[in-house]
């Protein structure tokens, strides 16, 4: 036990030094203040907006992919409460060379229950492939399937994200 504690105590200063060095590194220009802060600390803050620059596994966001498209999704609030309206912030990331989409359709269903939502959400473009989606509600606990549909020059592209709500 003492050996384990000793090892841990030795690691902590090393972690602190690494974080300090990361904080000193320059950040990409054009990043928002929260994004810049997140990059400096080496993590994405849960309340930071979604961005295509955020790598897979970034905490607090979903990143479904399909046919070269990727979405970075942050629910507001998180975790999603049962039976209360929530919103999504979405960054749509097109394949290289494709223009950012102008529109986005969002829906969700519970495949096991064979029903969808009782409300029709609305996605409002924020510019640069980012959207704010309002009017969603998961009115039951369980497994929901979040569906995003993007109209592209090659036809619609659909991205799905499983969501477990408790």
């Amino acid at each position, binding site marked *: 036990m003492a050996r384990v504690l000793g090892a841990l105590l030795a690691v902590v200063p090393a972690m602190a030094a690494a974080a300090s060095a990361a904080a000193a590194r320059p950040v990409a220009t054009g990043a928002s203040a929260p994004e810049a802060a997140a990059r400096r600390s080496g993590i994405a803050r849960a309340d930071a907006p979604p961005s295509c620059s955020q790598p897979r596994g970034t905490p607090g966001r979903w990143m479904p992919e399909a046919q070269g498209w990727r979405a970075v999704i942050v629910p507001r609030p998180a975790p999603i409460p*049962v*039976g209360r*309206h929530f919103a999504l912030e979405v960054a749509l990331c097109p394949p290289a060379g494709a223009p950012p989409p102008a529109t986005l359709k969002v829906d969700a269903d519970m495949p*096991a*229950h*064979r*029903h*969808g939502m*009782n*409300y*029709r*959400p*609305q996605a409002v473009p924020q510019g640069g492939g980012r959207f704010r989606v*309002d*009017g969603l509600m998961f*009115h*039951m*606990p*369980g497994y929901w399937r979040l569906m995003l549909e993007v109209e592209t020059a090659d036809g619609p592209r659909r991205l799905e994200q499983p969501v477990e709500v*408790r």
Partner: protein
Amino acid sequence: MSPPPSRRVPEAPGRCGGLRSAGESRPRRALVAVLAWLSLGVAGAGPAPGAQAPATLLDFTADERRAILAHGPWPPPAQRDAGNSLSGRPAAIALGQRLFFDARLSGDGTLSCAGCHRPDLAFTDGRARAQGVAGHPLDRHTPSLWNAAHERWYGWDGASDSLWSFAIRPLLDPREMGAGADHVARVIAGDAELACRFRQVAGHAPGQAPPPGRTSVPAEALPAERTLVVAAKALGAFVATLRSGRTAFDRFRDALARDDRRAASRYPPAAQRGLRLFVGRGACSTCHSGPMFSNGEFADIGVPFFVRPGVVDPGRHGGIQRLQASDHHLLSPWSDAPPDAAEVLKTRHVVRQHRNFGEFKVPSLRNVAVTPPHLHDGSKPDLDAVIRHYSELDLDRLHADGERILKPLRLDAREVADLKAFLHTLTDPGAGRWSMPRGPACGLGAAAAARAASR
């Protein structure tokens, strides 16, 4: 089964995960340990003949505990009526309370709101289906008004999105109260007490146009309609104050939350088993979720659509249609909510779907044991009948393209009794004992008001 008698047992210090206060003495700790051991029913020897059985606590799993805790805490923070700037204002609540009990508001002067929402019956009427003016039979059961401000939609079909708009519907419906805006304005203007209170609330006399700049309601609206909406908002302000008290379940839930096994084990074993069924195999909490024991939405539970020969109740499908056709919803000029307010999201985004046909509101189960008959059509006289309905569900009566959630539970007699025991613990003992607060007459001076309040 009745809730257990309220007994105050000193709580053991150091209950939270074994933490204890610094000054706790060794003999006291030993006594506490023995008491806790006994309360867990692990003493080996059974109870002495004639003695009360030792309290027990089921070994709820982590998932069960999480599901149980999601039904609280209670009470939640007070909620105001949506789109109603009068909600929370004492003068409006006082006016609304008087209007609620005033039968003169109905067209023939015989039926008040309280005529159907009786305080002594937990704000229901005890009938299977409601009766309007002159005993006119209606198609649905009168819902309780307890905790109404915590609901999302009003009416079994959710045709109203606020308490104030919900109050307008029965006033104007010729089968219910059979009044009109002119009638309501005349009654209020013709009663000195009501007229005085109305002036305090609205800033102008009933039946008259408000001074310029005092209101944002449509300029073309007739003064009588303005009076009707102010009266309805006062009614909404009053109903929003009706919040039922804590129950045996709430005490159990909170004891579980703080890991107080001693307090939790006072909850009757049958209710614990019923609760386990409710959140587990019965999957009741899928729809009856949260502190209200309702998700606030709508479901088809296989009750026949016909309300009488040749007449079908479309339920939520018709409710959304009526909501969107209403002049008084939260997106209308009569609403006090800004267009971007969170409370109007439901009205802006709700969508009518084919599966809504035959869906009715998932009712709150708080006080369900004291508000029979049950279901939207009052077709189940008691809790036994409701539980049997779910136990022997006729799947052929469900929409072919509807939800696939319900299945017959096939409960045995003990499970039925356990579920019923649990549902009884959702009763606030004061749910049928609401009494009208007394207040001074309108326009009394401060000293007279204080004297009246102290009587």
